[in-house]
């Protein structure tokens, strides 16, 4: 068996699953209760029976509902259940603990008072470490980003300089012509990279966002994508529902759609079905771009949004497309998801919060 560092946590989680479950109830769903619940949700051995808080709007209750864990405002019936192993009391109310001991099932242990405070401290510390780790990862990502740019520019730059030198020493016109073509290709690559970077860097500032019609933008993007690719045998299906807008800057929305369409067309190797959908669904705007292309392997899927990740030939793709798409979508509080099946096709979906005119 191979054993790498990355696998270690997985292994221990699997072991935990085979250990007996612990049925847990959380009393108190304020800040502490919510943090506790969040951690418990990640622990496979812990089975949450319910969460209680007097305040119906307590943040922990909301989180619990989202994970389909029973919630209640009345703790007493909950703690009387016979199958409970542990009651964690983070109500911070000492008088309440008397009540717990009086009403709980005799088999249930109680973790409250100072013990629950220590637990709370540990969890807080853990979440602080997580934030730090996340920031470190982000910084590391910036490094990758910067050296990725350097690498992608230095290659064509080398070609340009060396080919120019070769021209100086060359008398054969055919060779000179060839070198000049290489120089032009290389310069164009640098241009693409710099466009992608500036597009991305420029992101905010400039004019205001306004409700941009999705249908028109999709159509314009399609025109651009057609220009940018060999489109010959692609059938386009347009599922547009009327008058959908997204609060954004039009050129950014266009950039998102163009990138996704070009990727889709490339994946189909110029033959297949491109389905564009725009609709209002339960108060959100859903836009999706689906292709019948070669799909994305499970190995590549986690990497496609990384800056400079590309499977395209050198000079064909910078690997910044999806990276830029995702940053723009995030900027507008949208959510970008991908679903892909190798050999069948890929669908990129974006959910944008709907523009509510009454809030304007």
């Amino acid at each position, binding site marked *: 068996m191979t054993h790498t560092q990355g696998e270690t946590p997985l292994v221990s989680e699997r072991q935990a699953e085979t250990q007996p479950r612990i049925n847990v109830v959380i009393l108190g769903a304020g800040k502490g209760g919510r943090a506790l619940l969040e951690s418990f949700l990640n622990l496979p051995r812990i089975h949450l029976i319910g969460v209680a808080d007097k305040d119906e709007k307590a943040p922990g209750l909301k989180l619990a509902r989202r994970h389909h864990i029973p919630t209640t405002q009345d703790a007493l019936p909950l703690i009387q259940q016979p199958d409970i192993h542990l009651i964690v009391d983070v109500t911070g109310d000492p008088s309440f603990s008397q009540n717990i001991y009086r009403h709980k099932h005799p088999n249930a242990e109680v973790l409250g008072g100072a013990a629950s405070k220590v637990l709370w401290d540990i969890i807080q510390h853990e979440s602080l470490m997580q934030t730090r780790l996340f920031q470190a990862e982000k910084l590391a990502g910036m490094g990758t980003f910067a*050296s990725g740019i*350097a*690498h*992608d*520019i*230095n*290659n064509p*730059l*080398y*070609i*340009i*300089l*060396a*080919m120019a*030198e*070769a021209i100086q020493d060359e008398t*054969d016109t*055919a*060779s000179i012509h*060839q070198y000049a073509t*290489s120089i032009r*290709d*290389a310069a164009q690559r640098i241009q693409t990279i710099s466009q992608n970077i500036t597009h991305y860097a420029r992101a905010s500032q400039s004019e205001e966002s306004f409700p941009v019609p999705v249908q028109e933008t999709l159509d314009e993007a399609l025109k651009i994508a057609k220009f940018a690719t060999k489109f010959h045998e692609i059938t386009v299906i347009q599922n547009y529902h009327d008058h959908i807008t997204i609060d954004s800057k039009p050129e950014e929305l266009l950039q998102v759609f163009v990138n996704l369409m070009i990727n889709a067309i490339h994946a189909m190797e110029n033959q297949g079905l491109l389905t564009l959908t725009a609709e209002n669904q339960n108060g959100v705007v859903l836009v999706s771009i689906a292709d019948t292309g070669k799909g994305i392997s499970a190995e590549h899927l986690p990497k496609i949004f990384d800056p400079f990740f590309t499977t395209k030939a*050198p*000079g064909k793709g910078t690997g910044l497309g999806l990276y830029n798409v995702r940053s723009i979508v995030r900027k507008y509080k949208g959510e970008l998801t991908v679903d892909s099946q190798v050999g069948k096709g890929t669908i990129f979906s974006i959910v944008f919060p709907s523009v509510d005119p009454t809030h304007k």
Partner: protein
Amino acid sequence: MTEGTAGMFSGHNTKGRVLIVDDEPDVRKVIKMALTKAGYDVIEAEDGEKAIAAIKEGENPLLLDVIISDIRMPKVNGVEAINYFQQQWPSVPLIVLTGFPDMEMATGFIKKGIVDYLVKPVEKEKLTAAVAKAIDQREITRL
């Protein structure tokens, strides 16, 4: 398509035999132009896997004087390939030629025993000097 003057030199009486590993045809071409002009015999591979295959299937490592490799390539990347070369043919000197201007990476590689870490765009003179230096070292280990 003309490929410089390599044909004239290949096989015999060159200053040495160099394997270029880079995924970009134009980069290989540019290196090849500089080296053939300086009197070296050049063979190419587009990634580490192909380079390893080339040596295994005929290219005699004893006749190979220098390997120049990028480190970011598809399939078997340069770092993996370099590790492999160092294990299998420790006497063939290695030069890294890459777009990453990264000091830490450079010192890391030099410590591992490569001859030089060159950053693209590299001047012809610097490239040929590095190859010459590598071949000198090669001669010493051969003696």
